[in-house]
């Protein structure tokens, strides 16, 4: 093939498919990507240092702003880290409510992520509108429980801010009854879709060994065939009581990641059904009445991680015995999942870059922190 001059272009920082303010410096030979360097920092606000100047409770709403799609999951990881540091017990009922909220978050995140992925492929709006329609229903439930749709600020140390409203579970049941039809419809729409298959099969392959070496987590890791899920690997909260599967892909291409997300929505629904069954028998209230919110933990460090919809979300805290964390570190899944982006895109066409980035599913609020 004729060798042409290399061309360096910038995708972003303002680009509809970069999911925020994010830039990729792409070196091209014709239309083929030979190198890609991500450039971060457009949304950097030194989240960690601001958090070190806040009290422990003041940080709870601030974690909402990390991954603004999944505020409940962020709350969960942070609450767990502080509870380990201060030695706060969580009643059983509160644990069930927490897991319920995080699993609902997973469904809405994946519904949105799949819609956006299709958007990136040039299939305008229809699938995104389908996903957003389902997301709205879950957001209504969040609003009923926490008072807010996106920035929920629902978790407290030792439980959650308030108990579920009386009509929450009936509405949730309705949602669960309608959900399989939606997921099946979405899968059918996409699985038999010529555009999707052409654009995603064999694109952005991340082999198993490379995925592990690059420390990626979440659906990206499982799409590459590694059955690693924090909910199974190191069960936290009440996840050891539920029966669910960890879906994995085989090749590690964009298509596999998409299938893993579809299946995870079904598994989350299974977990929620088991929660509804077990919730009435759960001991305790929605919060530990002895838990103080203005905590002053002893001098120590603690770490907590959860399986957030985007991957492994971890919080590392060091206390110096005061009311503010001495060190507050977020292990953001979106950020680390971007590490292999250059390798995943190398050798593919420039139009595939957008799709591969979409399949990683990032939120810049969390990447740049």
């Amino acid at each position, binding site marked *: 093939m004729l060798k042409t001059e290399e061309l360096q272009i910038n995708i972003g920082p303002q680009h509809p498919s970069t999911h925020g303010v994010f830039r990729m410096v792409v070196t091209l030979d014709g239309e083929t990507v030979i190198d890609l360097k991500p450039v971060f920092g457009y949304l950097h606000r030194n989240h960690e240092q601001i958090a070190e100047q806040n009290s422990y409770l003041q940080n709870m709403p601030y974690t909402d702003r990390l991954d603004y799609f999944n505020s409940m999951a962020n709350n969960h990881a942070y609450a767990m880290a502080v509870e380990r540091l201060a030695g706060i017990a969580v009643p059983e009922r509160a644990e069930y409510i927490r897991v319920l909220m995080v699993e609902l978050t997973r469904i809405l995140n994946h519904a949105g992520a799949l819609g956006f992925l299709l958007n990136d492929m040039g299939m305008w709006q229809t699938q995104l509108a389908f996903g957003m329609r389902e997301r709205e229903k879950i957001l209504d439930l969040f609003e009923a429980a926490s008072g807010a749709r996106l920035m929920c600020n629902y978790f407290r140390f030792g439980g959650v801010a308030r108990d579920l409203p009386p009509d929450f579970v009936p509405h949730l049941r309705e949602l669960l009854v309608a959900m399989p039809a939606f997921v099946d419809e979405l899968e059918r729409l996409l699985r038999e879709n010529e555009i999707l298959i052409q654009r995603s099969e064999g694109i952005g392959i991340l082999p198993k060994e490379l995925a592990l*070496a690059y420390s990626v987590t979440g659906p990206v890791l499982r799409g590459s065939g590694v059955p690693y899920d924090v909910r199974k690997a190191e069960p936290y909260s009440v996840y050891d009581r539920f029966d669910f599967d960890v879906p994995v892909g085989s090749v590690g291409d964009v298509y596999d990641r998409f299938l893993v997300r579809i299946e995870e929505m079904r598994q989350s629904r299974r977990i929620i059904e088991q929660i509804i069954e077990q919730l009435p028998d759960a001991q305790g209230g929605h919060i530990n009445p002895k838990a103080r919110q203005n905590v002053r933990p*002893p*001098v120590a460090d603690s770490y907590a991680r959860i399986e957030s919809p985007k991957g*492994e979300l971890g919080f*590392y805290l060091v206390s*110096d*015995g005061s009311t503010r964390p001495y060190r507050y570190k977020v292990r953001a899944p979106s950020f*680390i999942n971007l590490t292999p982006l250059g390798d995943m895109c190398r050798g593919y066409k420039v139009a595939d870059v957008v799709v591969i980035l979409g399949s990683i599913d990032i939120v810049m609020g969390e990447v740049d922190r």
Partner: protein
Amino acid sequence: MARLSPAELRERLERDLPGAVVETTPLQISPPPAHGPPPGPYSTDDTLVAPDLLVEAACYLRDQLGYAFLSDLAVVDFLHAGLFELMYRFYHVDGGPALVLKLRVPRADPRVPSLTPRWPGANFHEREALDLFGIIFDGHPYPKRIYMWDEFEGWPMRKDFPRQGDKYIGEDE
């Protein structure tokens, strides 16, 4: 799943990698307050390794013990004690709790060997630590700032970084 506890890890490392494990000493995070009882010292159960042998210890965890997944790297600035503590978390692919390696370097000369050549997943973690704390990772293939712009001076997450003022805004006007 039976996994190694920190004490067992220390034993294994002492046996197979002499000189890697360093004695942990408790340190004071902050100066004693003017009133009231002073807070206790900060001590850790985790394994403290010598910076020179970090790469060997990490590879031992991966190749001999199967802890192939490097999850997190966090830096803590202990200004009062005059050192940085780095925390590395490794997980086993089959599950179970983490093995943690920690190391301490003086604030005056924070040099640490880079894991990135052997462990590509450490790349962004190390660049973040370089950007915000000014830790120098020897052997990193692309040691550039990751969040702040290249011309930025100073290390924003250090405890002695000024938290007020506009030192960096409009400097060249």
